[in-house]
């Protein structure tokens, strides 16, 4: 087993003048302090990428900047699945004895470091350069295609999807670091500007500045004993044109593998942290993971099932949709919040029981998936 021994998260939104390295450093400092570790005790670094400041060796750029000389360091790139892919790699490297304390860090000034057009255009490049990108798609368009098909096959409506945006906003109201802290209604989502129909502005996560970090260690460094119980991946395709049928998407494959490795079932899970780049992403993943029956994610959200006091609290920080999305750090915030919940440090957002958590990340267009179970070890 490995342990998540410390977490760090900056507020998301605008950090005028802060570079990607600044945001990474702030988050790393917070994670080190949380774990009670000194810089010199970190012997491994994994980091994501920055679309604003691309570099072929970001992990060593960061290590030099931060003032550490790790024995193991490199970047990882799996789109939105990067955060959990790094956690999984750290878990295995720590378990294999390669690294004692792995610092996993990401941060990006994605909002203030470039124009919104540049951010949208950079992300659209996950599409096929010859067969998709010349058609002028955006990430919302790729997911808009998926949404139209999913709604068609399962009778999901735009109002249903809007419920998930409302849920994430409701959760964000209780987190001072969230980018969006004004309440919204289903009617607000329905009336928001069309982006790539059926997706509207409030169905889409924002572009944010922010940073997040966590440390994966061989042994607990204090009283916080949060262990990685099991994790797994699935990669079914890259481009939406080549995606398998909706019934064969990777989330189901990844979570089935993770359940087998962890020896856990969905019934054991007390807290869920699920990637929510768009409302359709969250709806589909909740249903693929077995956290809601097919076509019923919205009904469960409406009934309070995923609320702070519900049976399965979900993304209590507000998720990508309302806490914000600064790239790789965006989904790392899900893990940070999960850790705070599991260690009963979530303050006003604290749920009753987060002893076992399921985390899931998705990269590309439902292309790459990582599922992970964390448990509180007594």
């Amino acid at each position, binding site marked *: 087993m490995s342990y998540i021994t410390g977490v760090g998260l900056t507020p998301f939104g605008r950090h005028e003048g802060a570079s990607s390295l600044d945001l990474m450093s702030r988050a790393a400092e917070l994670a080190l302090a949380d774990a009670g570790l000194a810089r010199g005790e970190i012997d491994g670094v994994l980091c994501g990428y920055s679309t604003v400041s691309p570099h072929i060796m970001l992990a060593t750029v960061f290590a030099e900047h931060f003032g550490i000389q790790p024995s193991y360091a490199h970047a990882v790139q799996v789109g939105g699945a990067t955060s959990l892919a790094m956690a999984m790699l750290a878990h295995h490297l720590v378990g294999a004895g390669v690294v004692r304390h792995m610092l996993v860090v990401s941060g990006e000034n994605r909002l203030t470091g470039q124009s919104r057009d540049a951010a949208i255009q950079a992300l659209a490049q996950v599409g096929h350069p010859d067969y998709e990108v010349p058609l*002028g798609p955006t990430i919302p368009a790729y997911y808009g295609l998926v*949404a139209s*098909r999913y709604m*068609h096959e399962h009778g999901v409506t735009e109002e249903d999807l809007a419920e998930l945006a409302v849920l994430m906003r409701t959760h964000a109201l209780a987190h001072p670091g969230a980018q969006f802290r004004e309440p919204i209604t289903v009617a607000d989502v329905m009336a928001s500007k069309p982006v790539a129909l059926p997706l509207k502005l409030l169905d889409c996560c924002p572009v944010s500045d922010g940073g997040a970090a966590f440390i994966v260690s061989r042994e607990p460094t204090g009283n916080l004993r949060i262990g990685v119980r099991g994790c797994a991946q699935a990669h079914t395709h890259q481009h939406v044109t080549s995606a398998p049928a909706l019934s064969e998407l990777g989330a189901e494959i990844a979570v089935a593998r993770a359940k087998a490795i962890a020896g856990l079932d969905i019934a054991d899970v007390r807290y869920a942290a699920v990637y929510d780049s768009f409302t359709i992403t969250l709806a589909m993943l909740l249903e693929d993971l077995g956290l809601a029956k097919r076509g019923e994610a919205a009904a469960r959200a409406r009934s309070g099932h995923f609320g702070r006091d519900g049976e399965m609290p979900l993304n209590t920080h507000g998720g990508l949709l309302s806490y914000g999305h600064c790239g790789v750090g965006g989904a790392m915030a899900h893990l940070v919040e999960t850790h705070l919940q599991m260690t009963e440090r979530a303050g006003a957002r604290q749920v009753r029981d987060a002893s076992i958590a399921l985390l899931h990340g998705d990269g590309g267009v439902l292309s790459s998936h990582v599922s992970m179970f964390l448990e509180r070890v007594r």
Partner: protein
Amino acid sequence: MSVRADWTRGHEAILYQSCRSCRAAQYFCRAFCAVCGGDVTESRASGEGRVYATTLVCRAATAETRVHVPYNIVLVDVSEGFRMMAHGEKDLAIGDEVMARFEPFAGRIVPYFVRR
């Protein structure tokens, strides 16, 4: 491999590949069959198909594409047995039987599906 003379290179054609061994059809051109690794031959598609998914893009990210907003991006299951992304009429619905033609978009031509 031959240089493909299809819409991605400015020609009014949709090309695809078929495997000589397993007969699988694939749209993204490459030197081998992605199912079995076998040799492939290139053919021209009829342009007939059925709409699998649609999205109306209302927010574009470049000056060249913004002049076309809103435009409908569709996934079409082509009768030769592969799926492709294209543009289409704004009111296309999932399941519609469609036929490809070509339209200018952002300084090039792109496949554009209309109801048949």
